[in-house]
């Protein structure tokens, strides 16, 4: 929509026109302030846990499980060197054969959600689809954090 607006403004005689193509989603994903009736509502990106353990494809599951449990977690997000999400290790995957490589053990291609989504919407979605946790990523797939269903439900309830 914004490219059409930009071109139309030029044709109306505006000589210095810019198009912020990544738009409102990019702005909100960066956690920058907004204005409006929804501006104060909590969003997925704020509630997602940023301290979630991560793992790489070529690691050994046993090593990752030790590391994850040592910091009190039962889940980890599989990312590459660019922090792009490739998979998810929930408790079920972490219990597999410790000699497997992460790429063999992980749940590949998990559904991811954008940081700007309202926490109420996320709580409903995760409850409905029985998602105990969901990675929150930027538009280009980079990890922001892991949103736990219990956190989403609790935070959504606070706003009722």
């Amino acid at each position: 929509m914004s490219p059409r607006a930009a071109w139309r403004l030029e044709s109306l005689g505006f000589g210095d026109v810019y198009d912020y193509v990544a738009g409102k989603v990019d702005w909100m994903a960066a956690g920058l302030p907004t204005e409006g009736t929804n501006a104060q509502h909590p969003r997925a990106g704020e509630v997602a846990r940023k301290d979630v353990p991560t793992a790489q494809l070529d690691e050994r599951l046993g090593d990752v499980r030790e590391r994850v449990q040592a910091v009190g977690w039962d889940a980890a997000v599989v990312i590459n060197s660019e922090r792009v999400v490739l998979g998810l290790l929930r408790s079920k995957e972490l219990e597999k054969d410790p000699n497997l490589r992460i790429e063999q053990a992980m749940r590949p291609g998990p559904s991811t959600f954008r940081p700007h989504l309202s926490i109420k919407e996320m709580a409903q979605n995760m409850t409905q689809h029985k998602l105990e946790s969901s990675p929150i990523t930027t538009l280009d797939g980079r990890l922001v954090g892991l949103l736990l269903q219990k956190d989403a439900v609790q935070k959504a309830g606070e706003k009722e």
Partner: protein
Amino acid sequence: MPTEIDRSKLQSLVKEGAQLVEVLPADEYEEEHLPGAISLPLRRLETEAVSLLDRTRPVIVYCWDTA
């Protein structure tokens, strides 16, 4: 030809006095918009752009994302 910009360029242009315009429908603007942005939905550009905006200053438009 309009220039595509990223977030940091937007912030510097706004500091320098650029006009920031959300072209989404007005109800979406009411719910949430970038600080200081004005609402000028795409369908109203034809009739309202010239009266609402200053042609001598830079204009930045945005919507939800690249779609």
